[in-house]
């Protein structure tokens, strides 16, 4: 599926779970080809948004258009081109990887030939060893199961790929492999990558949406986010007993204990300490800066 006119339009979407509990509030976003990194703290509403786009649940208010068609009214249009890897998903333990993917291919409506070809390709792509492919999924490790999950999401060569915490459970090597895979896929489709691992987003996202308490806080290019914290990242060395006080007055993104004290990385509009040395800002700094209530323009 390659189509330059693909467009996902999220218009004022809200989701209410209980009388006063909102998972999402007035969320609007326009997406075209590329990888959107969806970043936010736990419980921010990332998975809620994902499940609404994946047609698993309905928005309470607002609508989502896939190439101009409301996905709540005509879900099959988007389902036909959708690849979805949920954060929490299961597999049928008595089937092996090939059988499970054949099952998913059948219900996704892939032809027998395409399915056969894709399954072999994808199992190679996710690096699942040939001898493991015929073993029941019930005996798989979490990482292997995750790789089968990734393969099923890519079965129909999706135009819209939604991956929720995809690298959870993967070892570092597999994580890098998956990030490269996402980068390779990015040019031809819309990919929504939800994660709290900023380095994953840093590596592949063409644009980033920050979400908190169900609301869109900022939608920007990675470089725009980095510009927001330019000159605001510092390295400070403080005695360990002064660290709590530093945390009180500034955003501390990381710390490392050394013989001369604690080396703290700080994001702050002003120089946090006389001895503070300016440092190059990272996306993680920008994320913490925006989430803490700054730079939300």
């Amino acid at each position, binding site marked *: 599926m390659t189509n330059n006119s693909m467009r996902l339009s999220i218009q004022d979407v809200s989701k209410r779970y209980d009388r006063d509990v909102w998972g999402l509030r007035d969320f609007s976003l326009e997406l075209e080809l590329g990888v959107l990194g969806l970043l936010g703290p736990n419980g921010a509403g990332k998975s809620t948004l994902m499940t609404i786009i994946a047609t698993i649940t309905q928005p309470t208010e607002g609508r989502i258009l896939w190439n101009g068609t409301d996905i709540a009214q005509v879900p099959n249009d988007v389902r036909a081109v959708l690849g*979805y890897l949920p954060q*929490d998903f299961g597999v049928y333990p008595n089937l092996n990887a090939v059988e499970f993917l054949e099952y998913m291919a059948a219900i996704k409506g892939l032809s027998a030939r395409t399915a056969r070809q894709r399954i072999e390709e994808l199992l190679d792509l996710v690096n699942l060893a040939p001898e493991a492919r015929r073993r029941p999924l019930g005996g798989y490790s979490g990482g292997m199961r995750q790789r089968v999950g990734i393969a099923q999401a890519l079965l129909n060569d999706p135009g819209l790929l939604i991956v929720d915490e995809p690298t959870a459970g993967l070892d570092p090597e597999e994580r890098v492999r998956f990030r490269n895979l996402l980068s390779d896929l990015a040019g031809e489709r819309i990919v929504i990558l939800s994660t709290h691992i900023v380095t994953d987003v840093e590596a592949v996202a063409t644009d980033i949406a920050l979400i908190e308490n169900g609301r869109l806080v900022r939608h920007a290019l990675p470089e725009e986010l980095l510009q927001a914290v330019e000159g605001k990242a510092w390295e400070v060395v403080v005695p360990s007993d002064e660290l709590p006080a530093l945390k009180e007055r500034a955003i501390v993104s990381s710390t490392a204990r050394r013989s001369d004290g604690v080396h703290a990385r700080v994001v702050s509009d002003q120089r946090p300490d006389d001895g503070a040395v300016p440092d190059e800002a990272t996306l993680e700094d920008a994320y913490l800066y925006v989430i803490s209530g700054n730079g939300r323009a």
Partner: protein
Amino acid sequence: MRRLRILTQLVRADLLERTRRYSFLITLGVMVYVGYLAVPSIASKALTVDLGNIRGIYNSAWIGSMIALISSMVLSLPGFYLVKNAIERDRKTGAGQIIATTPLSKPLYTLGKAVSNFVFLTLIIAVVALAAGGMQFIRGESTQLDLWALVAPFLFTTLPTLMLVAAVAVLFESISFLRSGFGNIAYFVLWTAVITISMSGVSFGSQGVIEEPVNDLFGASVVAASMHEAAHTAFPEKNLDLGIGYTRVEGEIQTFRWEGVTWTGDVLLGRLLWVGVALGIALLSALFFHRFDPARGGRRTSERRGLIARALAPVRALSLPSLHLWRRVSLPMPPLPPFGRVLVAEIRLMLKGLPWWWYVGAIGLFVAGAAGGADPEARRGLLGAAWIWPVLIWSGLGVRERTHRTGPIVFSAPQPLGRQFVGMWVGGTLVTLLTGSGVGLRLVTSGAWHHLLGWGVAVLFIPTLALTLGVWSGTSKFFEALYVAVWYIGPISGLAIFDYMGLSQEALDHGLPFIYLGLTAALLLAALIGRWRQVRG
């Protein structure tokens, strides 16, 4: 003291989790309704405890005892299925792995779970007891409330029974092969046997009721003996008979005053015996409980290490293909049109993972059915066996997506209703058809067209019932318990109205196949609506 605190916390967490579920409210509603039915209106000719057109005045003792007795019999079946998830929940949520790393001992854990089950069931019974008090005033035959006479039967007849149910549920969860569908069916069989044995000692004879606490799990003989004594004093000339259950009687109903069972030390000891048995079972469960060891968590792995499997190991090694090898056999996907591939995938999903002996049994039943299905009595046994054999396949219909958490990826595929749902239903129907085809073939060759009609309707009815209950309840337990009960009462015991297989002439004469065909259509529609709701989120 620390142990008590652990126990309390186990019970508290389980209780909070369970009482916040809809199934709790539904059970409460059903049980209160059962309590209401247990005390028929004074004007009606209905009785639930009938001593031969004689009943006790609706005072606290009579109402309390009646509702307590009926509740303990009724709740002991669904109550088991309601609480048989305490260990499973810890396993599924991952909390078990955390628990396993604490100093909590296995006996304390299984005992805690049994107590937790018991407290939950007790909560239900407490509401029923409250409703019983209300019923006394609704019926208004006696407005003098004797709290002890009302509550004591619940304490001494119902609670020991429920303690046993609570402990048996833990035992079933601890033994790997009883943990899933097979255990659900085994409990029904056990429950039927226990009811039969318990009630066999409660009929009235010339010497009144013989109290046999060892046989009497439900405490019915204690209550019946006391009722018999009072009724005999009130009506010495009458031949007393005892019937428990909702019945409509002919003629005038006479009443007598009964002040309830005198709870003597002996009587209480008889009831305490069951509490002791329950505690013993709860502690025994610790022997089988694997403490969330993932290496032993899998059903099949545990089966291999189970006592029975260990005993059979030499035989298995000599002559039978290993289970592990069997699971590795891969069934190829034939080149078919799209729906055909969905169908094959669904059937493969149903059949994959079944042990080799399941296929041997199915083939045996096919051959036996084809050979001996012409004789009506043989047919009852053969078709009955053929259509209980796949019960664990059917009970997975409509449930798998929840059990295995594949819902998000299955429901986000295109046309989940037109493709996967229909494939699942047709697949289930084909499995039913194939497993019953031995008898079906025989019916065709012998020209028994009326019976073939009943057979054909059952082919559609059984998987549809499973699918509907699975989709709406989200658990396989409901179908497993209900289907086995209906299968036993209808086709096996011959009660025509439940004979969905059309085995008896009476069922055919009353046009039951057509009724079940209509019911199948309604169930299918209900399943479709249920799945549509799931897909819509």
